[in-house]
Each structure stands twice: as structure tokens, then as C-alpha cells.
């Protein structure tokens, strides 16, 4: 495999191709929409969705080579490509991967075909535009994970915002306008501040080196020299942008609305990938660029506290949601709290756990939203009270929902456990109280999900509309799209080693770097105090 | 001579301003605007004795623009009148926020 990939120069072109390919697909869809404007809506749906599916499958297939071609142990950026973009400002088109970004890129490319399949029959209007936007979104998300230039990162960050805004706003539910505007503004507030911080970093770089340069590596080298002037505010700007995206408590209220109103594919992508951009931002930018600030006791404890509040609060609020999608949205707040706890605990185990939660939350919550979409298509309701007894009429659906719920609860043997366990056991040595409080969510998580599962699958089958679901169990398309997710849930729960190995080097490098910055800061402070 | 010309210009301008501020008929308003333009023209011409011919060139410009403006403006007013049967400004508030 390695030899083959080297032979075709895979690493030299793959990342730009991965970014361009979905855009091309989107263009094809747009062109096809013009050509096809005379056909019926059903015909248009058939064409557009299969084009999108093939593009996403090809994209996933293309990206799989990265699993082998990326040398995760290397400290250098893998598959890196740098092209000039705006030389006067020192802005480049620079992309590259490390172990962490690799996993997120693969998560994205592998989930997109499933997102398309999940929209297969539920999106019936303006299908060409829908799938084109989905493909543009893919480029934006991949770009965020790959970008090695601050400006490119910012551009990609905004690129993915617009398609998602449109997807929610056009194909969403009843209150879609409210939800999409809220989503857009919330994210925008954070990201504009981030832009200011990025420009500020560029200015500082120019002052130090004499040449404008927005590349990530330069910023990182600058950070090694100690905090830049205004580092606190710059960190805060980055952190706010990412905290909104994660979303950390109390910046989370856009999420339930966006999830509830978004179409299935939107919810899946939102939960599985977009939220991860926030945590990825912390891991890649906010923390390593400002290690002294992020690890300053006051700042750190604020973030730890917010993370733990998010964990418990999200779980408690999920407990009382009547709407299944909202319940899952709040459970996301809780799960993402674990990621933040892991990041700010700053031990290798906790960081690895955070990355593991990142991936497994993508899989489990993605699957949950797909499952919700499946019964929503049949029953047109998301209210738990409208269901009951489905296990006896839709046994396959029941099996799938049970497994996914167990994974989300974090039952050992599923992927959910590995990440949460690593986060907790990794953060306990340095942050025992936060870890213990966070661990209480294992109880609440069981309560809210099992209660929801009971209200959907169990209890008497009294509602005639539910009785009518007999014989309308999951079809082959739905089984096929759930199967890889269910497999991943069990595989990552039983044998997470391959994934852990992919991210281990990057995680421990980050921890080392942050810790050494913190140590030198402490030395400087104690030295200063002695004088 | 210069002082008198500037004084006349100021008086004309003020009359124009007051007219614009106080009258509500679009045509009269329009005439007041023309009055203000011509007041400015007067001061341009008067001051050209001191600063050379540039002011006089500007007057030509202003008159051209004023002619164009008058044409467009009157056309608009006529359009409004056709639409609303009035040129009273208090009734025309499409710009209201």
C-alpha cells in the first residue's frame, strides 16, 4: 500500500484534490440543475442525489489512502502542500495533516456519503442546490482541518458557515429562519473576533520578522518565544470563536435550535463534524498558540469549570426534553464538555480521550440523528410522547437504536466508553474534583437515553399510527448506511488501539509543548518573585 | 464689488436654504435648490477675480450638472405626481425607516 501510494505521489496532491473535488462536484450539480430544469422534481431528486453520492464516495475512497500515507509519528506536517496565494500579505494556501487532523479528515470524508444517504428520500425540493451545498460544506470542513495558514483557516471557517446556514434555512423545519439566523450570528460573533486576533498575530509576526506571514508554523514558533503582546485578548478571541462552535456552556443555546430545525443531513454534519471544529480549534490554535494564557490557573479553571458545568448541565437538561432531537442536542453539549475537560486537563491520556470522544461522538451522535431522521420520515414527529412500543413493529430499528444509545451512554465495549474513560482517568491525577463531578454524568446519561429509548421502543404499542409502522422497518438503504456506523461503534469499543496510535504522537507533542511553556512561565515568575 | 457680490450670494443661498426647509411643494423646493446652486455660482464668479479662471470653469460644470439634475428631478416629480396626484412632500415618505 505504501509503495503504491508513494508511486503515484499520493501525498503530493491528495489534500488539494480532496478540497477541490467536492467543489467540482458542486459545479457539476449546478450545471446539471440548469440542464435539467425541465424534468420533474422526482427525476431531479434521483439525479442529484446519485451525483452527490458518487462524489462523496469517491472522495471517501480517495481520502482512505491517508490512513497509510500519513506518518503520524513524524513531527513534520504530512501530505503538506504550500502554494502562494496573497504574497504581499504573507498569506499562503498551506495545507497539511498530523495524526489529529488525519482522524478528523477521515471522519468527515467517511460520514459525508452517509449524510447523503440519510437525505436520500427526505429532501425532495431543490435537491440539486441541497446536494451542491452539501459538497461545498465538505470542502469547507476539510479545509478547516487541513489549513496551516491562519487566513486560510479563517476563510475555510467561514466557507462552511454559509452552506450550513442555507441548509438549515431552506430545508429546515418550522422555525428554520430563527434557527439559521441564530446559528449564523452566534458563530459570526465569535469568528469575527477570531479574525481580529489572526490579523493581530500577523502584525506581531511582521514586527518581529519584518515580513508579513500568516503561516501556522511561524505563529507557533513565535509562541515558543513566550506570550506575544496582547496574548490574553487574542486567546480570548480565539477561545470565544471555538467555544461557541463546541459549544461550551453558556454559548450552547444555538445548538438545540439548529439541531431541531436542521434536516437530517444537517444535524448529522453539525453534530458529527462541525462541533469538532471548535474542539479542534482549541487543540490546534487556541491552546498551542497561547499556552501560557490557556494554562494560567485562572483561565484554565474557568474552562475546566465551564466544561464540567456543560457535562452535568447538558445531561440534566437532556433528561427533561420532550423532543428527541433536542435531547440529543443537549447530550452533545454534555459529551463535548468531556472533550473540553480532556483538552484542558492537559495529560496525554486525557488529550487522547478527548480525541477519542471527538471521533466516537461523531459516530454515535451521527447515527442517532440518522435514526431520528428515519422514524421522522415515517411518523413526522420527533416528540417522544408520540412513540412507544416500536420494538415490536420495527425490530431492526430497535436493535440499531439500542446499540447507538448504549454507545452514547458510554457502556464499555462501545466506542463511547473508551473516550470518556480516558478523559476521566487522564484528568483525575491533575484535576480530581472536576473529574469526579464529570463522572456523575455517567448516571444521568444512562437516565436520559434509556428513558428516551423506553419511550420510543418499549411500553405498550397503543398509538394506531405506531401500529401502522408494522412492516415498515428499516429498508436496505437504511440498514446499509447504519451498518458501518454500528460496526465502528463496536470496533472502536473493543479495539481502539489503531485510532489511539494515530493520534498518540500528536497528542503527546502538544502536551509536552504546552507543559514546557507552562514550566518556563512558572520559572520566569518564581525567578521574578525571588528578585 | 467683491464684497457686494459675496453678500448677494450669501443672501440668495440663505433664501434657498430657508425655502428648502420651509416649503413643502416639490417644485418650489426644486426652485430653491436651483437658487442655492446659482448663489454658489455667483460666489465662484466673484472670487475668480482673485483666484483666476478656475472658478468660472466650475460654474460651467455646475450649470451643466444643474441642468441634468433639473431634468432628472423634474422627471421624478412628474412620475410621483402621476403616481400619487400630489407633489406635497409631507405625503411622500417612501424613505421612512
Amino acid at each position, binding site marked *: 500500500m505504501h509503495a503504491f501510494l508513494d508511486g503515484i505521489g499520493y501525498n503530493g496532491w491528495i489534500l488539494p484534490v480532496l478540497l477541490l473535488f467536492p467543489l467540482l462536484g458542486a459545479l457539476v450539480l449546478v450545471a446539471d440543475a440548469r440542464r435539467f430544469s425541465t424534468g420533474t422534481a422526482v427525476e431531479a431528486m434521483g439525479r442529484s442525489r446519485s451525483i452527490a453520492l458518487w462524489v462523496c464516495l469517491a472522495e471517501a475512497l480517495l481520502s482512505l489512502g491517508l490512513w497509510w500515507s500519513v506518518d503520524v509519528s513524524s513531527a513534520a506536517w504530512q501530505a503538506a502542500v504550500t502554494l502562494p496565494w496573497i504574497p504581499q500579505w504573507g498569506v499562503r494556501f498551506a495545507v497539511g495533516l498530523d495524526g489529529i487532523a488525519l482522524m478528523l479528515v477521515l471522519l468527515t470524508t467517511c460520514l459525508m456519503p452517509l449524510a447523503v444517504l440519510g437525505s436520500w428520500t427526505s429532501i425532495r425540493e431543490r435537491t440539486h442546490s441541497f446536494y451542491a451545498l452539501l459538497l461545498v460544506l465538505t470542502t469547507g470542513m476539510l479545509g478547516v482541518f487541513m489549513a496551516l495558514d491562519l487566513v486560510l483557516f479563517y476563510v475555510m471557517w467561514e466557507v462552511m458557515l454559509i452552506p450550513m446556514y442555507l441548509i438549515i434555512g431552506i430545508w429546515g423545519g418550522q422555525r428554520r429562519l430563527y434557527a439559521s439566523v441564530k446559528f449564523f450570528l452566534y458563530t459570526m460573533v465569535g469568528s469575527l473576533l477570531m479574525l481580529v486576533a489572526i490579523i493581530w498575530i500577523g502584525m506581531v509576526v511582521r514586527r518581529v520578522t519584518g515580513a508579513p506571514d500568516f503561516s501556522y508554523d511561524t505563529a507557533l514558533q513565535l509562541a515558543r518565544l513566550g506570550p506575544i503582546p496582547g496574548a490574553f485578548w487574542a486567546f480570548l478571541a480565539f477561545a470565544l470563536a471555538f467555544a461557541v462552535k463546541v459549544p461550551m456552556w453558556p454559548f450552547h443555546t444555538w445548538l438545540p435550535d439548529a439541531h431541531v430545525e436542521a434536516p437530517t443531513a444537517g444535524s448529522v454534519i453539525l453534530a458529527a463534524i462541525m462541533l469538532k471544529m471548535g474542539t479542534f480549534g482549541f487543540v490546534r490554535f487556541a491552546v498551542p498558540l497561547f499556552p501560557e494564557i490557556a494554562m494560567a490557573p485562572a483561565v484554565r479553571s474557568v474552562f475546566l469549570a465551564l466544561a464540567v458545568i456543560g457535562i452535568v448541565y447538558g445531561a440534566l437538561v437532556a433528561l427533561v426534553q420532550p423532543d428527541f432531537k433536542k435531547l440529543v442536542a443537549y447530550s452533545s453539549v454534555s459529551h463535548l464538555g468531556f472533550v473540553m475537560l480532556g483538552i484542558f486537563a492537559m495529560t496525554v491520556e486525557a488529550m487522547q480521550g478527548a480525541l477519542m470522544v471527538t471521533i466516537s461522538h461523531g459516530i454515535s451522535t451521527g447515527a442517532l440523528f440518522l435514526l431520528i431522521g428515519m422514524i421522522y420520515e415515517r411518523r413526522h414527529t420527533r416528540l417522544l410522547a408520540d412513540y412507544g412500543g416500536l420494538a415490536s413493529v420495527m425490530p431492526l430499528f430497535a436493535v440499531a437504536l439500542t446499540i447507538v444509545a448504549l454507545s452514547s451512554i458510554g457502556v464499555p465495549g462501545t466506542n463511547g466508553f473508551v473516550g470518556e474513560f480516558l478523559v476521566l482517568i487522564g484528568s483525575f491525577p491533575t484535576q480530581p474534583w472536576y473529574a469526579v463531578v464529570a463522572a456523575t454524568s455517567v448516571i444521568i446519561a444512562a437516565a436520559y437515553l434509556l428513558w428516551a429509548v423506553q419511550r420510543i421502543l418499549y411500553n405498550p404499542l397503543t398509538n394506531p399510527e405506531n401500529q401502522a409502522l408494522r412492516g415498515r422497518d428499516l429498508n436496505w438503504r437504511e440498514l446499509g448506511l447504519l451498518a458501518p456506523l454500528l460496526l465502528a461503534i463496536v470496533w472502536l469499543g473493543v479495539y481502539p488501539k489503531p485510532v489511539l496510535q494515530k493520534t498518540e504522537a500528536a497528542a503527546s507533542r502538544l502536551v509536552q509543548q504546552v507543559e514546557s511553556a507552562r514550566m518556563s512561565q512558572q520559572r520566569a515568575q518564581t525567578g521574578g518573585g525571588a528578585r | 464689488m467683491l464684497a457686494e457680490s459675496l453678500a448677494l450670494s450669501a443672501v440668495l443661498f440663505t433664501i434657498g436654504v430657508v425655502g428648502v426647509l420651509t416649503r413643502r411643494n416639490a417644485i418650489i423646493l426644486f426652485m430653491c435648490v436651483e437658487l442655492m446652486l446659482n448663489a454658489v455660482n455667483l460666489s465662484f464668479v466673484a472670487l475668480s477675480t482673485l483666484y483666476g479662471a478656475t472658478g468660472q470653469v466650475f460654474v460651467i460644470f455646475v450649470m451643466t450638472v444643474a441642468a441634468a439634475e433639473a431634468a432628472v428631478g423634474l422627471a421624478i416629480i412628474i412620475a410621483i405626481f402621476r403616481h400619487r396626484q400630489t407633489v406635497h412632500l409631507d405625503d*411622500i415618505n417612501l*424613505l421612512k425607516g
Partner: protein
Amino acid sequence: MHTDLSASGHPLSDTVAALAWLILLLPLLGFVANGLLSLTAAAHPGPADPSADHGHGDASHGHAHTIGHAADHDDAHHAGRHPAAKWVSLIGPGVLAVAFGFALVTFLAMRGAGEAIHAPYVLTLFDWIPTGALQIPVALQLDQLSMVMVLIITGIGTLIHLFSVGYMQDDPGYPRYFAYLNLFVFFMLLLVLGASYPLMFIGWEGVGLCSYLLIGFWFSEEANANAGKKAFIVNRIGDFGFLVAMFLLFANLGSLSYTGVAAGAAGLEMGGALVTTICLFLFLGATGKSAQIPLYVWLPDAMAGPTPVSALIHAATMVTAGVYMIARSATLFSLAPAAQLTVAVVGALTAVFAATIGLKQWDIKKVLAYSTVSQLGYMFVGVGVGAYTAGVFHLMTHAFFKALLFLGSGSVIYAMHQAYHATHAHADAQDMRNMGGLRRYMPITSSLMWIATLAIAGIPPFSGFFSKDEILAAVFARTHHSTLAEATWLGIPGSVVLYGVYALGLAAALMTAVYMTRMMLYTFHGPNRTGPAEQGHLREAPWIMTGPLVVLGVLSAVGGFLNLPALFGGGMSEILHHWLEPVVGEGTLRVTLGEAAHLSHATEYALIGTAVAIAVIGIAVAWTRLKPAALVPVSESPAEQGLARTLLNKWYVDEAYDRVVVQPTLGVSRTVLWKGLDTGIIDGLFVNGAGFLARGLGWLGSQLQTGRVGTYAWVLVLGAVAVLAGFSFR
């Protein structure tokens, strides 16, 4: 951390024990096979477009999967046999029988290796979570303790699987049932065979999951689904304790494997705060799984599951996991006398408390459920006072007689249900007030259950007598010359606490004798209360069900001989004690200050005499005072009053928990957190508030836009004047 005891070079490494993973694999394969069989019959993938309209007429085409659950809460069903039932009957018990055979062979290999085995045999299979300083391999630990547990689990498990073939064969969910049951055995085996706490935790949560699925097996009834959910959530409270204990172990000892912890424990301070905290958190985990105060509330509700499940999971195996865990952590617990006393006190209190409730239950399974809680309390008293062998011994005998009692009650319920089914009556097949005199119709079940009753009541020479006596004797012995006697517990001297525990133990023994005799009397003696039509249909269950009962009857009768006290044993004495010595001996010795505990023969006879006397008194009192003839069927029974009513309602503990914990949590989450903080303050005040603020400012600004050109001209002129003024007066 896992290489400290490599597999090679161990006396077992070249024996069949190296294939111990097969014991685990077999039930897992059974689960997969049965699960697939269950799904293939259920699977009719739906139409390509799920939102397409469907006529209701074709909605029910050819669907074999009808959960037909009668409205009464008994649990034998006849809604049509599953098409794959034959295969399932072969696979389900088959894999267990083979696993048991394999366990026996491994056991013999261990016996063969003889005295040579002092270190556990650790079999590393593959890496599970390797990252940073945390290295958790999937490794199995075969030693004397896990061997005993494996034998119990696979042995009793096989019998209960066989019983289930008869009991469940007409249930439409038959393959699903066996899939769950096999999965349970897999997780239970993983629990006892895992070589580290995280692996035990996988099994720990896995058995909880299977318990959840099996309690809610007949999920179409809300009560059953509720019971399953309650079991899982309450267990999770315990699991939280288990997790924290693991965090503490990893943070302080740097290892989570048993061997690593044992090595690290040497550096811990005797009676120190750290080890006490670890042990208390572990014990919190145990109270959840093993249904001790305050987390016992799920077990009685768990009786909503099929009766063989109650026998296997909620009596013989899963609920004893907490006892196993403490025995496994003997090294740690023996370093923490305060934690040990806590375990003993909680165990004793649970034993008495549950026994009081058992006195007044009418549902035959509920009696047995509270009896199980009470007996588990006994086991905790045993392991709490450092008599790990005694605790495990009681675990084993209890597995025999309680499995027998549950399966026997299953037999009774089956017979009752068949009778009611034949007459199309809808009475409660589990309420003892509807039974009576069944000994005439079910002589085998009746006599076998009497054996178990005598065993649990502690009548010699039945098995329960020996194990219970050993626990009580150990408690008595610890009151002098032990770390426990010297320690204090909440300011009370340890010896005083232990005397109290002993007294509670005797009280529980008395009540056990009473409620068990009551149960037997009301079920099997006196006149029959089913009604004339049903009486003709009451008969003994088929052999596939009574067969396992007979085996369990033999084990209940003679199981005590596996660990006879030295007092009468001679050469045959203390077999189990010697067997477990390499695992728990060190812990016990530390508790008894380095010397084997010794009571004088006179004391020992006195203790035995007391225990037997109390059991006899209990049985006699119940036999003479209770009048089964005075009972009437449920439908005619008056409501209970006074203390009886309180006991029947289980001291209203469930209601109290609901009021104090559940409702406040839900209420606060709903009104304060969600409606108040989330949608009210954060979303309403801040988010939408920001929106309103922006809109308000915009509105203010828009008010300047009158749309009147005159106003604009005024503003323009005023502005020009202001600018001019500004320039002139600068």
C-alpha cells in the same frame, strides 16, 4: 504494567488453561448466533422510501414477531413458537454446556498443577487501551478465585439455560431471550476472568446491560420497561463509585491490573485515608451491583423479568459480583479496617432490613428477591470482616439454593399459568394467596424447594448452614484480636460494631427462617385456592425443567461439604478454604493480625447451637402461627393495615427516593435549568436579549428616517452649521 507476570513459565502455561479464552468465546458466539436468528425472523426490510404512503391493510403482512403479553404480570407466554426455536434450543444451552465442560477441564488442570500455583496465571490476549501511561491489555486472570466463579457461572448457567428451554419455549421472543442470556454469561465470565479492574468493569457494565435487557424482556408493559431502566440507572450510581475507585488507583498506584495493584498496595499505609477512600468507592460500586443499602431498590423490581433470569442473574451470579469484587480486592480491603467495618455494617443492616420486607410479601418472587438482598448482605458481612472464603462459600451455596428456589418458583408459576391459561382466567399466577396446597400437584418441586428452604434457613447438614455459620463464626472471632476490633468506626470501637453485626446476623437468620417457611406454607400447604376449574390443570412441569431442579437440589443438600469446618471435617475439612488460600489468604491473615483465627471448640459449638436454635425457632414459629387455611385468594383478600402494610410497601423506600431524588432532579432540571436558565436567562435574556437590543437601537435609528425630505434638509443644515461652528470656535 501487564508484563509483571508473564504467562510463560507459569505452571499452567502449557496446559489447557492457555485456551481459557475459549470459555469466553463460546457464549459470545452463542449470542451472535441467537441474535442473528432472532433478527432473521424479525427482519423484513421496509420499502425504499419510508415516507411513502402505506395502506394500513398491508401493514401487518406475514409478521411473526408479535409480542403478545397478557395483561397480568405473570411470565409464561404462549403466543406462538418461534420458527428458529429448535436451533436456539440447541445453541443456547449447548454453548454453555461446552463452556462448562471446558471450565471443568481447566479446573482439573489447575488441580493437577496442585500446590505449585501461588501466582495467578495471566493470559494477555491483545491491547485494549494503550495510551500514555495507561496500558490496559485485554488479559484474563486464571486463579483459584476466578476458577470457582467460572465453575459456578457456567455450571449453574447451564442448568438455568436448560430450564429456560422449557420455560420460555412458547415465547415469540425465544431467540432474543437466549441471545441476551448468552451475552450475559459472556460478560459475567469476563467480569470474573478479567485481569484488571477496567476489564472487570466491562463485564460489570455488560452484565448490567443484559440485566436491563432481560428485566425489560417483555417490554410492551411499561412496568417491565421501567424496572429494567431503574436497574440500569441505579447500577450506574454504583458504577460511578467503581470508576472513581479506578481513577484513584491509577493516580496513586499507576496500575489497574490486579497484580499491579497488589504490588502497589504494599506501599499503602495501613488504615490510611487513601486506601480507605478507594475501598469505600469500590464498595459503592458493589452496593449497586449487589443490591445493598442504599442501592438495593432495583433488585425487587427486577423480578419483572422471566423467572430463570431472576435465578441466574438476580440470585446466582450477577448480584454476587460485588462480593467477588471485594474478595478480589482483599489486599486493599484488608488495609482499610474502617472500610471493612462499613461493608460489614451495611451488609448486616441490609440483611435485616430486606428480611423484614420479605416477611410480608405476597408475590412469591418478591419474597425470594428480598431474601436474595438479605443473603447478599450476609455475604458482605463475610467479606467485610475479612472472611473472604466464608463470603465466597456463601456465594456458592446461595447460588445453589437460591437458583433452586427461583427455578422452583418458576415451575410453580409455570404450572399456575398453564392452569389459568387452560381456563382462560386472568388471575395473578405469582401471588401466593392464589396458590396453596400445590404439594399435591407438584411433589418434586415441592420437596426440592423444601431442601432449599432448609438450606437457606441454616438447618444442618444442608449447604446454607455451613456457609452462614462460617460467616457468623468469623464475625464473632473478629471481635477479638483483629485489626477490625482495634479500629473504630464512626467513633465506635470495632469490637462493639462487630457484636452488633453478629446480633443483626442472628436476627436476619431468624427472619429468614420465618419468611421462607411462610412462603413454603402458603405455596405448597393448606388447601388449594386456585379454584375448582384450575385444579384439574395443575401439574408438574416437564422434565427439561425439573431435571435442573433435581441437580440443584443435590447441590443445595451437599454443597456445604465443600468447606466443612475443621471442627467436624477431619481430612475433608476446609477444602474451599485451602483452595482460595493463595488468592485471599494474605488479606485474611492481615485482618487477623498474622495468625489464623481460632475459636475454642466450646465457643464454636455454642455459636453453632445458637444459629441452629434460631433457625429451628424461626421455622417452628412460622409453622405453628401461620395458618394457610385462613388465606383467601387475592380478589377476596382485605387490604393490609399497620406495620404489615408498611412492610408490604417496602417501608415506602421507593416512594421516598422518588420524592427526594428523582422528582427534585427532574423538577430542577425542567423548571430551573431548562426553562429558567437555558431558555429563560441564557437564551432569553442574553441571546435574544442581544437581538432585541440590536433591534431596539435599529428602531431608534429608524425613527430619524421620517421619509420627509424636509426633515433631512433641516438635519443637514443643522449639521453643516454645527460643523462650521466647530471649526470656527476650535
